[in-house]
């Protein structure tokens, strides 16, 4: 068994977005804090969002409560990364 280095919250969010949307490494590397998510990306439906939240919990070892999830969270890539960073610090 060997452990790999821990992911930063931003790297984890980027990796999960890449997996959900089926993007290449280069495409997902172009995401900036201002990149719009919910509404702008049709693949990001409620089922994909459910998978995203659980996968982030798993990869970052955090717990996300119902009342922490609202539309604003998925407005931009920056919002989602900021949320993940906040949860990891908790």
């Amino acid at each position, binding site marked *: *068994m060997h452990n790999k280095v821990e992911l930063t919250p931003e790297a984890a969010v980027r990796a999960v977005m890449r997996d959900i949307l*089926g993007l290449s490494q280069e495409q997902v590397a172009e995401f900036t804090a201002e990149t719009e998510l919910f509404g702008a990306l049709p693949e990001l439906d409620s089922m994909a969002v459910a998978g995203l939240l659980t996968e982030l919990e798993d990869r970052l070892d955090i717990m996300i409560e119902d009342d922490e999830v609202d539309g604003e969270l998925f407005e931009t890539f920056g919002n989602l990364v900021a949320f993940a960073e906040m949860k990891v610090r908790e």
Partner: protein
Amino acid sequence: MAPAFVDYEFAGRKELCLCHSTGSTRRVLLVPPLFDEMNRMRKMLVDVMHALGSFETSSFLPDLPGTNESLVALEQVSLSDWRDALRACAEQHEISHIASFRAGILAVAEMEAAHHWIFSPVKGATILRTMMRTRVAADRESGLNTSLAELTEQAGAGSLELAGNILGSELFAQLNAAEIPDMTSQRIVRLESDSKPADSHIAGSALWLRAEPDEDPAMSFAIAQDIAEWMEP
């Protein structure tokens, strides 16, 4: 040769099993992920079966009772039934090794004497959490405010509809409690992007997260190659 359907008997019924036989005595049971993840990874698993054939390895991909072509209602099925069904399938098809994907490991957790190849294992509560979140989002769209805690409570009292699946109380309770087992003979394989401990990492992407079912031929081939090398006598 192309994969073909065979069957296995469980609880007095026949369940289907996709089979890619090479005539070899190296026979691996592929245990699929559960629920929606199974649909998203079905194409990948069939690609793995083709690739295993090129390594002179026979593979079997069974339908779990209550899923795919099974005539039993999912609502009537428990995790114990899945465990008994897979044990029956393994015996009837003289399986020598088991490869499970995601939560599939939970359905073969009691086959301790077997050799287990385990891909990106996940506990039952994690799978249920995603499905409950989908239900919460759907409820919200119809103006209902449901919580994960409320849904868990409802599942204790009766059947629960989650993301298009009707789960009986027993299946929900058993899955919710099902942890990833530690098997005597095991090889844990994860994606390169996954930082959790593993015996080996494979390049590819998490197809179980993909919004639409997709394929990754290079990953399927790498998985088949890793399984075939692990099965070498």
